[in-house]
């Protein structure tokens, strides 16, 4: 709309005039956005470019750095820690995403009805979302503790276990514990997303289906599920990206152990950079993580933009 009007108001002859005061006046907006652009340039764009540059160097925290080309990337390919961290990240993502998703869908169906108290239920299920991930991780370390933890006491009371179980001491149970904690903390968020998607479906669709004699199951199968495709895609991608960036629970709950088996990719970047001080190598890991996440984002855009079905 603005370009069309600009062309009719400014014929070529007028446009070739030297930049007038009104041109400068138009640039005032730049002054308003400049502070935030400066912040983004210094603390976001510059480090982004530096990540790529550093990944081509042997870059210790202190001392001389050397340009090494693609050596970091070559080292990364034969680095068992990298592959196992990527493997654990993928495994964690594959476990936590469906668990979150299915439970959140169930919760959303439960609180979709507009009945008495439902607002209270929604708020209660959502409440853990606002607690920090680090704080929830610490909270669950206590709940799962073998001495003072309520989890073991409860299991012992109903006779499932005889001895207190060290939940964070074996790889499988540590993963389970982390998934349980993250589900408790995050499922309310996915529930809310799905609920908003569900409520966007016009009620007339269900009325028409009921007139045709569709069972609740058929209404779910033929109306709710297909019409929520975009919401599902959004919830899935958010969950996958969130899982791929996981750090707090692994660091706080399991400390990466046992035997480095719960180290995620971000955790490995953290270790390479701030424990081993191999900044260049950490940067090459970051680049690989970024490429993976950009691929996920592209899939997200594709899934969200494909509107052909309805």
């Amino acid at each position, binding site marked *: 709309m603005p370009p069309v009007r600009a062309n009719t108001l400014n014929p070529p002859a007028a446009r070739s005039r030297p930049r007038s005061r009104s041109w400068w006046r138009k640039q005032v907006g730049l002054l308003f956005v400049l502070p935030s652009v400066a912040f983004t340039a210094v*603390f976001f764009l510059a480090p982004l470019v530096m990540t790529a540059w550093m990944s081509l160097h042997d870059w210790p925290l202190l001392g001389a750095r050397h340009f090494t080309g693609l050596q970091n990337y070559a080292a990364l390919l034969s680095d068992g820690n990298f592959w196992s961290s990527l493997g654990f990240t993928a495994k964690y993502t594959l476990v936590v995403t469906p668990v979150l998703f299915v439970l959140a869908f169930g919760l959303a169906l439960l609180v979709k009805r507009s009945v008495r108290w439902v607002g209270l239920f929604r708020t209660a299920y959502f409440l853990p979302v606002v607690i920090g991930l680090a704080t929830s991780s610490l909270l669950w370390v206590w709940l799962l503790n073998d001495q003072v933890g309520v989890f073991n006491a409860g299991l012992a009371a109903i006779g499932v276990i005889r001895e207190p179980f060290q939940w964070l001491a074996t790889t499988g149970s540590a993963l389970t514990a982390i998934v349980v904690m993250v589900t408790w903390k995050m499922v309310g968020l996915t529930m809310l997303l799905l609920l908003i998607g569900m409520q966007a479906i016009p009620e007339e669709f269900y009325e028409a289906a009921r007139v045709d004699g569709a069972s609740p199951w058929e209404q779910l199968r033929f109306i709710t599920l297909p019409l929520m495709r975009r919401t599902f895609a959004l919830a899935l991608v958010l969950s996958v990206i969130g899982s791929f960036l996981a750090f707090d629970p692994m660091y706080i709950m399991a400390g990466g152990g046992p035997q480095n088996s719960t180290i995620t990719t971000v955790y490995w970047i953290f270790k390479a950079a701030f424990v081993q001080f191999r900044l260049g190598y950490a940067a090459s890991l970051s680049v690989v993580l970024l490429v993976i996440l950009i691929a996920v984002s592209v899939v997200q855009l594709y899934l969200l933009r494909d509107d052909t079905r309805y």
Partner: protein
Amino acid sequence: MRAHPLPAHPLPRRRRAATVNTLYYALCVLLVAVFLFPILWSALTSLKPPSEAAATPPTLWPSHLVLDNYATLAGYGAGLVRYVGNSLLVAVITIVLTSILSLLGGYGFSRFQFVGRNVLFVVMLATLMIPFQSILTPLYLILRAIHLQDTLLGLALVYTTFQLPFAIFVMRNSFDSVPREIEEAALIDGCSSVTLLTRVMFPVVLPGVVTVALFAFFGSWNEFLAALIFLNDSDKYTLPVMLLNVQSGLYGSVDWGAVQAGMMLSMLPCIALFLFLQRYYLSGLTQGAVK
């Protein structure tokens, strides 16, 4: 969807509906207990006498309510007041900077045509897609180069930067929904553009500012990884980093009562703010999700 005969119900319709209703509420209440139980148990434990808080097996109700655990926690390291102060300072700087920068930025992107406007806006939004976890290493070097590494200000500047894309997006939408007639009327009345923004527009876009400020609070109060990396001096720790040290017993053996007292200090401001400002928080979430 094909028509099919109504299934035969074992119970008369009304009694069946009542049963379903009871089951529905029973399930909902059970789930409320599951979600709130860890928080409530932690709150109760924080009020137990220290020996009860460390008892095996754990007890639910305190024999009597005391604030001993909070008193113990107050004496940890540089003192609890210091750590809560650190967290608050970082949060306040982040909130103030994010609100001001996004107010200006949102106004600029919404109301002005200038060279590079679209490119800059797309760049700002694109940063939403790139997580800060992937640029931690150079961020550390940049903070060190400008002598802000291991400072609360440096941490707040980083938090602000990562709140900005979402904040500017929210503020631009807020300004977009304000009718232009309001500005035109003010300009005719002889308002300067600064007065226009602070006196006329600010009250109208206040809901957007509250949303932005709220997210800035949650983002900085709860953040752990960057705080862990950028802060070396233990006197400068924010609450999450300090709590990890209490929990891992760096200052002696683990004092579970004190840990729960710390949990409460970390959780309660978030829960209270969410309950009071739910409307703004949820509108921010939906805007963020749709992008």
